[in-house]
């Protein structure tokens, strides 16, 4: 049975295709632009095309993320906390703590060995500690987003940022530029500042290894390094973890489909 998980995030819509709740077949993403339904359908079409499937071959579709209610043909929707936890444990079975840093919000989740959420803490009120902060820095420091991390890793003396607020940090960073602090040191300071905000959330739910990073910043080696340095623990960062919530949604969709086939459970 093929199931699909669709994660409708604020920056990107991510999709994952799974077989029998055991095998990850494909992942795809598209930017969230205008109509979430249309962008979401593009992701599903891309996944189906890659696997030579018809949309009808997908037995069950489960949505998650900020826009999970905006996709009318879904059969189930689950919160991004539930789905990220499940997805992270699928990718790294030893995971007991999930750190999800998204474009607009971040969360720390402690999970059981089966991927059930035990406790979580999130920040969605403030841009500091979210991917948006990195995007803004990339803009006003005129460093392309995809080069931020590699440049930051060349830092010799990272310049820590004292402002908690993303907007006030901007002024501080501009002052640092004026004082001729090397760019790499400023950039690493940005990641360390994000890691510190993440650490505050993580401590709230208790930190236990293994830690798995999910969400948009998994591709950023500088972020991984900053979190490792701040928590003094090793952090799992696999590229597929960008799709952890979509994968988790696909898994939960499979579970629900099985339950329905057995005659148990009620459709969502």
């Amino acid at each position, binding site marked *: 049975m093929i199931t699909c998980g669709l994660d409708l995030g604020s920056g990107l819509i991510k999709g994952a295709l799974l077989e029998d709740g055991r095998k990850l077949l494909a992942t795809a993403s598209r930017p969230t632009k205008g109509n979430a339904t249309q962008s979401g359908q593009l992701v599903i079409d891309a996944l189906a095309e890659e696997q030579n499937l018809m949309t009808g071959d997908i037995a069950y579709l489960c949505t998650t993320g900020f826009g999970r209610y905006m996709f009318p043909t879904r059969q189930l929707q689950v919160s991004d906390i539930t789905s990220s936890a499940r997805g992270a444990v699928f990718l790294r079975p030893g995971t007991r703590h999930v750190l999800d840093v998204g474009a607009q919000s971040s969360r720390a989740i402690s999970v059981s060995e089966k991927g059930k959420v035990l406790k979580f803490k999130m920040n969605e*009120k*403030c*841009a500091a500690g979210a991917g*948006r902060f990195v995007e803004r820095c990339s803009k006003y420091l005129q460093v392309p987003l995809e080069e931020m991390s590699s440049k930051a890793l060349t830092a010799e003396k990272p310049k820590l940022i004292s402002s*908690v*607020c993303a*907007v*006030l940090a901007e002024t501080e960073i501009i*002052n640092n530029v*004026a004082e001729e602090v090397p760019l790499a040191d400023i950039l690493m300071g940005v990641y360390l500042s994000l890691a510190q905000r993440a650490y505050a959330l993580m401590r709230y739910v208790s930190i236990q290894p293994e830690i798995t990073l999910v969400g948009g910043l998994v591709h950023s080696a500088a972020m991984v390094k900053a979190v490792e340095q701040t928590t003094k623990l090793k952090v799992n960062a696999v590229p597929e973890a960008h799709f952890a919530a979509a994968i988790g949604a696909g898994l939960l969709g499979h579970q629900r489909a099985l339950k329905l086939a057995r005659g148990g459970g009620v459709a969502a």
Partner: protein
Amino acid sequence: MKAAAGIDIGSTTAKCVLLRGKDIIGRSLNPVGVNIVRDAEEALRLALQDARLDRSEVGFVTGTGYGRFKISFGQLTVTEISCHAKGAHFLFPGTRLVIDIGGQDTKAIRVNERGEVADFAMNDKCAAGTGRFLDVCAGALGYDVAEIGPISMEARHPVKVTSTCTVFAESEVTSHVSRGKDPKDILAGLHASIANRTLSLLQRVGIEPEVTFTGGVSRNEGMVRALSARLGLPVNVSPLSQYMGAIGAALAGQERLDGGVAS
């Protein structure tokens, strides 16, 4: 009689006021850049020029504001909280509560009948509810922050702005624009949002009339009206409200001069 100078180095502008006795004889306002030491000197020079006074006529220099420790030539530094309390009391003797909304922080100061600080609360950690918030959101609408107050007052159906964070509010503004909302209505919503944030800060120190509004954002009529509406109280605003910290600093210096401290 020698004059006392008060210099307030804020996050955005430097203000200087020259006081002789109870009279404000000169003032200046200039932007703050990277070189704060030089900006402070420039503020004093411009105020002296305004008063047509020679530097030797100034008997005492007091610094305040976030950059006060960078004033290389002052005799005294006083916190901006004390200065705003003192300045507000000087211009409006009935003041019991001061709201100071500056470029990057907001303060609520409860003052006694002598203009001394009884209690205060501040937000200097986050740009929400400060001048910076208006600045960023005005920019997102293509306006200059100086012009948005009166425009917001023409709103008919104010839009509710739900984001607290400045960064998220900026995106919220953009999405209201793309949904065809009237900029006037969005601006009114932004002013109401700051008024709400301010109210919670004011409640921490206790709300008691008269209320005096100081700091750069008090120059914004729309903000004065939004605050007054939210408080259900009239709000004192002086044309010199932006200079309140500098006035308070000059008054502190004047007290020293009266007390016989030589320059």
